[in-house]
């Protein structure tokens, strides 16, 4: 059906972009896990993959922007749609930056702290699963608005769990016997890990805003 053809094309691209961002975050997660397990070769492979997936996601985002501003959707909705896409894209950017931190700066993580770093990495980057579920639920129109909001609430809860892990690990870092520079380096590494869940929470907020606007 020719009706709303442009809008359908944008929706397809948004879902493709979401898949790409998810793959990028998953690749970053694997890279982080392999780095923390001292398998540098595997970590590099996944990090390269993450980088190329993020670049592809950017290209799709540009395509979405061009389609939106060449007439898809009413002007009133365009900004909300693009803001949502941009916020999802930032999750991918943060995941790629986290990967880069591991492989470019090679933070030295002691054996005692490895499990904590692994836990916070999995929790923070694993947030993409909840985010994808919420966005799919909204865009496919299969779920009720309340269900979408339940999913966005879950993103918020997961981000809170990441905050808790971050607090504990920060304390662990700064109460350890390491050099101060080393402590700061690990804190920077931790910051780059939790940035992913922070950006995912922003994307969840953006999605929740869209659902609120749709409520009558």
């Amino acid at each position: 059906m020719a009706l709303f053809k442009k809008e359908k094309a944008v929706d397809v691209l948004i879902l493709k972009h979401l898949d790409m961002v998810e793959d990028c975050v998953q690749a970053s997660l694997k890279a982080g896990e392999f780095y923390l397990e001292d398998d540098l070769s595997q970590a590099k492979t996944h990090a390269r993959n993450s980088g190329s997936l993020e670049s592809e996601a950017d290209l799709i985002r540009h395509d979405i922007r061009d389609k939106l501003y060449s007439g898809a959707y009413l002007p009133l909705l365009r900004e909300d749609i693009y803001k949502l896409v941009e916020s999802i894209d930032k999750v991918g950017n943060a995941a790629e930056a986290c990967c880069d931190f591991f492989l470019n700066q090679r933070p030295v993580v002691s054996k005692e702290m490895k499990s904590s770093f692994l836990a916070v990495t999995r929790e923070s980057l694993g947030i993409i699963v909840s985010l994808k579920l919420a966005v799919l639920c909204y865009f496919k129109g299969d779920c009720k608005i309340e269900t979408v909001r339940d999913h966005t609430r879950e993103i918020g809860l997961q981000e809170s769990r990441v905050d808790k892990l971050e607090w504990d690990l920060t304390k662990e870092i700064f109460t350890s016997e390491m050099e101060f520079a080393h402590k700061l380096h690990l804190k920077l590494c931790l910051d780059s890990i939790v940035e992913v869940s922070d950006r995912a929470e922003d994307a969840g907020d953006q999605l929740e805003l869209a659902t609120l606007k749709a409520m009558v």
Partner: protein
Amino acid sequence: MGAGVYVGWNIGANDTANCVGTSVGCGLISFRNAVILVAIFSILGALLQGQNVMNTIGRGIVKTDLSYLAVIIALLCSGFFITLATFFRIPTSTSQAIVGGVVGIGLAVNAEVDFSKFIIIAESWVICPLMVMALSFGLMHLLKSILRRFETGTFRFQNALGWLAIGSACYVAFSMGANNAGNAVGPIANLGILHPKLLLLMGGLSIAVGAATYGRKVADTVGKGITPLDIPGAFVAQVSSAFGMHLFSLLGIPVSTSSAIVGAVVGVGLVKGMKAISKKTMATILLGWLLTPTFAAVSSFLMYKLIKALFV
């Protein structure tokens, strides 16, 4: 004819807001695009269904043929008070102004004024907004319950709803052309200068020019001043007011586009509760409705008497 074009321009400047103010106000469409739609659909409305109101204004109220001077004074006095209201961003009734002007001039020239017709028209000015208010209140409740049942809020769904709202704005513009073009050119119709269809085209075109050049001010009042509207609200307000006006156009009764849309917006606002209605804006609008026809009638009466006394 110049005076008719002036009234048409005023109608466009003041009543564009009634057609698209709600859509522009909720950000669905830019004012520029809205004006293009108003121009197209008001001309169509004027050409296809403007005849009935033109007949009422031309012969329905004042039974005697008016002179050129009387027609010019009636049109200019009505037009002046609409310009004044537009300047102060008040969505006044162009129909009320022109009917007031025609009655005033009819009395001034000692012509036979059909007061029974006038009372029917005046009653419709009260009935139309109330009817439209009730309709929009009911429709809004209905739409809300439907939307809540589906509970879907995808962007594509909101987009479709937005297009429906734009479509309803076109319907308001059509009804406005059908009802109000006759106001602008009705008094000239009896002078026999142009074919009625050409006169209606002229009325429609002058409305379009008024919308493009001076329609922005009142659009802000209707779209945002009374109560902030969302997409479903804009759709319901526009469909209700367009339906009310269309009905009265078919009956040949010149009703106020402004009172229809304001009634509809209030009906939608009432669904959210009394607090959603800006009482100050409402008071200004009601005052405008009362004063415009009164001033138009009194000024055209006095102006005619003055010119007669001084120059004739």
